[in-house]
Each structure stands twice: as C-alpha cells, then as structure tokens.
C-alpha cells in the first residue's frame, strides 16, 4: 500500500466475509469513482475466494487470522489506517449495497466541516431508498432513543456507510464495539464531545447472498444496543463528573 503523502489522505476500508461474488465489483466501482484512493479489504476469514478476487480487482487485503465479527474486522482496518498515518477513513460494505458515487460527498463533508464522523444516510433528502417494515420500525425506535443521548437527531443510525477523521480513528482503535457497532460507535464519539453529520446517500438492495437477520436476532439486537448505549452513557458520565470534581478540587 502506498503510504499517505497528502494532508488529506483518504483510505477506503471494506470489511468482507464470503463476498467473492460482490467484492470485485465493489472495489472496481470505488476505483472508478474515487481514482487514486487506496482500498483496503479486511477479510474476516472467508472460506471462499474473497481475498483473491479483491486483490485481482486492485485492492490491498488485510486477512484476519480467524473470524472476529464485524466490529473486530472494522477496528483492525482503523488500527492499520492509523498506523499508516491516514487522516480520513471511509467504510463501505462489501456486499455492494453502498454506492461508490457517494464517497466523494462524504469525504468533502468530513474535510469541510471538520466533524469527526460523517454518516451516509438513506433518510436525509428524498433519494428513494427503501427499507423493510421491521428495519424501518427499528430505525424509528432508535432515532427516538438516541435523540436525548446524542443531543440531535440522527436519521439513519444503523448505516454502515461511515467516514471518520483521525481523531475518531484514535478513539476507535482503542475502543470499538464488537457487535452492532453503528449505534454504539455514535454514542462512544458523542460522549467525548465529538461531532457527527449526515449526508444523503443511496443504498442499493443486496445483490448477492442474503441477510442473516431473523426476528429473534432483531430482538437480541434491540436489547444489546440499548444496553450498550446505557453502559456507554454511564461510563462517560462517571468519567466526566469525576474529572469535573477533580478539576474543582484542584482549582
């Protein structure tokens, strides 16, 4: 991989697990719409030819020694990006659901606003993205829960199309949720007083494979995420109050 040389160095990371059917197209599409930007596919121990297909398409590959799940996979990418010195990282899913034409807009917003995270959202502006009824209901529920926690509305809290700057990278390489990361990652950043913004993006329907989310998993997801949000809020509030007490005692 070419080490970053510009102050606005960008790395695109693509976590992938058994995505040989889609990953080649995803990498080629990124190269087509964001030429000159390195693409890193993080392979979560696929049993198919994901690694070979990604390399043939022109991506760098970071193969994990064993299956870590999405959180561990994405965090490995963040750690490597931080070590290599990249200033910005945008995460794109390996199944082809995210449109690479939206990457430049996410990148521009990251640079122009200076905020730590930019989310590619299906629900900002009228771009005609559709989601299933259950998922849509879940997103509405989390919007309501997250509004008081984050202090502002987040339209698409479950979007995996996310750009971060180096400050957020530094936080995420040390502390990153392992499962159902999108919402918890938002809370982790917000509790450190970091800012996020949303950019309207189009999500395409999945072209290969099928979603593994069942009704029981959806319920587990809701409980898990609520607990994660609650724990993060408590953890950082305690630290904040302790720091406030110590600064009060010191001053």
């Amino acid at each position: 991989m070419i080490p970053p040389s510009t102050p606005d160095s960008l790395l695109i990371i693509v976590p992938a697990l058994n995505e040989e059917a889609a990953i080649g197209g995803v990498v080629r599409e990124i190269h087509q719409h964001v030429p000159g930007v390195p693409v890193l596919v993080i392979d979560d121990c696929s049993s198919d030819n994901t690694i070979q297909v990604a390399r043939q398409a022109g991506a760098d590959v970071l193969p994990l020694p064993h299956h870590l799940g999405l959180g561990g996979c994405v965090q490995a990418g963040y750690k490597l990006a931080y070590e290599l010195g990249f200033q910005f990282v945008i995460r794109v899913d390996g199944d082809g659901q995210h449109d690479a034409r939206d990457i430049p807009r996410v990148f521009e917003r990251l640079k122009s606003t200076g905020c730590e995270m930019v989310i590619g959202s299906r629900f900002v502006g009228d771009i005609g993205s559709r989601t299933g009824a259950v998922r849509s209901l879940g997103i509405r529920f989390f919007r309501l829960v997250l509004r008081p926690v984050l202090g502002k509305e987040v339209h698409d809290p479950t979007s995996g199309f996310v750009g971060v700057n180096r400050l957020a990278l530094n936080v995420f390489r040390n502390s990153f949720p392992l499962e159902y990361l999108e919402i918890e990652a938002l809370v982790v950043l917000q509790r450190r007083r970091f800012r996020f913004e949303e950019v309207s993006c189009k999500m395409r329907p999945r072209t290969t494979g099928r979603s593994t989310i069942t009704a029981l998993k959806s319920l587990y997801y809701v409980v898990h995420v609520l607990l994660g949000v609650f724990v993060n809020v408590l953890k950082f509030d305690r630290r904040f109050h302790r720091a406030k007490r110590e600064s009060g005692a010191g001053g």
Partner: protein
Amino acid sequence: MDRLLNVTTGLSVILLVMVLISVRRAHIRVEYSVSWLLAAGVMLILSRARPLLDAVRNLVGLPDSPLTLFLLAAGVFLIMFFRFSVIISHLRDDNIALAQRVAILEYHLRDRRNHENQEA
C-alpha cells in the same frame, strides 16, 4: 433429609475428584481450579457437619436445612459463573486484540517483502 445430604456429599466428592484429575491432566489451570475446589469443599463440609449447617440456617433465618444448603450452593455457583464470564470477556478482548495485531504485522511483513522484490 439425610438422603439429600448424602447426595450432596456424593456430588461434592465427584466434583473434587473431577477437578483434581483435570488439574493433573492440565485440562484446567491451577488458578481456575481453586474456586471449584473451594466450592466443592464447602458443600462437602456442610453436608457432613449437621450442626454447622443448622448454625448457618439459624444465621440466615431459613426454615429448614435442605433449603439452606440449596441456596448456598446456588449462590456459590452463581458467583463462580459470574467470575468466569468476567474472565471470558477479558480473554475475548485479548484474543481479538492479538488477532488484529498478528494480521497487521503480517500485512507489514508482506508489504516489506513485496517492496524488496520490486527493488531486486
């Protein structure tokens, strides 16, 4: 009542023997066997020393000794399961961090080799 205490004694002895065999065969590390040995030992003593069990029963204010024994066993094993959950969580975090480190080091190694091959 006596039969229940005998069953508890038998189970405690089986647990003690199992743990000791596992430690000897290195299936379980010594530091993790201590809590199991302690739990089995406490259950064995309480099931054999009736006056001690009655004293514990009076102390916690329960109506009968079998219930006291059952609650004590449940409490001890709950604490142990919690302790192992904490250990497993730490191990999982360490395991993930190590796997990520190995992947990143292998990546750097491969990158360096490619670089050297290109220069050669």
